[in-house]
């Protein structure tokens, strides 16, 4: 995983979402720092973003499908180490709610990821793009 602009944006979005209810509890802060480290960012940089969050304007994507894509990516990032902590789950439920999803979507995605890993398919990826050829006008 690299610290690309999309990851930075995701992380800052998450920080902003956590701030949205007025305070960040320790477990949320710890979660963000862990996630940011997985993305390749330095802890001091992440802490700086948490501290300066009042200057960062976050808006939830208009597109519901874009929200799904972001949510899926967040869950994927969190699942990387194979463990999802209670606090992480709680935050994901919170984000899903703000994005307008039923909270059940979180468990559905997590179960899908875990089943996939158990079957041994996690290294199988699509290497060609046929997305331009599946529908007529």
């Amino acid at each position, binding site marked *: 995983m690299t610290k690309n602009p999309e990851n930075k944006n995701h992380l800052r979005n998450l920080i902003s979402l956590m701030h949205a209810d007025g305070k960040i509890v320790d477990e949320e802060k710890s979660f963000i720092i862990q996630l940011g480290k997985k993305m390749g960012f330095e802890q001091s940089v992440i802490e700086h973003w948490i501290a300066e969050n009042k200057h960062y304007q976050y808006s939830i994507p208009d597109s519901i*499908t874009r929200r799904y894509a972001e949510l899926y990516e967040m869950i994927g990032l969190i699942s990387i180490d194979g463990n999802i902590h209670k606090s992480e789950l709680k935050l994901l439920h919170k984000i899903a709610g703000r994005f307008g999803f039923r909270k059940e979507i979180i468990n559905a995605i997590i179960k899908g990821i875990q089943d996939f890993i158990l079957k041994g398919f996690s290294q199988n990826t699509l290497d060609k793009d046929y997305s331009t050829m599946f*529908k007529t006008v």
Partner: protein
Amino acid sequence: MYNLIIALLNAKKWHYQVEKENSSVLFGVSANYGNIDCYLNIDDEKGIFSCISFCHCFVFTDKYTEITEFITRANFGLISGNFEFDLDSGILRFKTTFYYDKKNEVSMKLLEKYIYTNLYTIDTYTPALMSLAYTDITALEAVAEVENNVRLYLN
């Protein structure tokens, strides 16, 4: 045909499971919007190949009507394959089939094209399906979000 399927999966270096020797193989791929499970089945007597893929979308019974409309709208105009929704079990899948002739089998390149088109189609519609299943948007809105996406240039 079975040997061709195995040769293709090996060439892709994809892990797979033989569900039934000489007739059914299961594999999965990590795609853009989720993981997809895919069964490749052949009926050598009848000369039928089918590729059936599943995204991990659980459909609540209160969403059956919306999902049914979504599938009707999504299926319209698809070049290859179709979505299917089992109203009894709630299972949602995307299926591609073709007939083959033992004497004139398809090439590996063409087989790959069928399988990839299947996988990309279900992957592309997955965000909309998940959004429909887990939010209050309508089927019309969900399909529009996919088909108006700039990533998709429709032929």
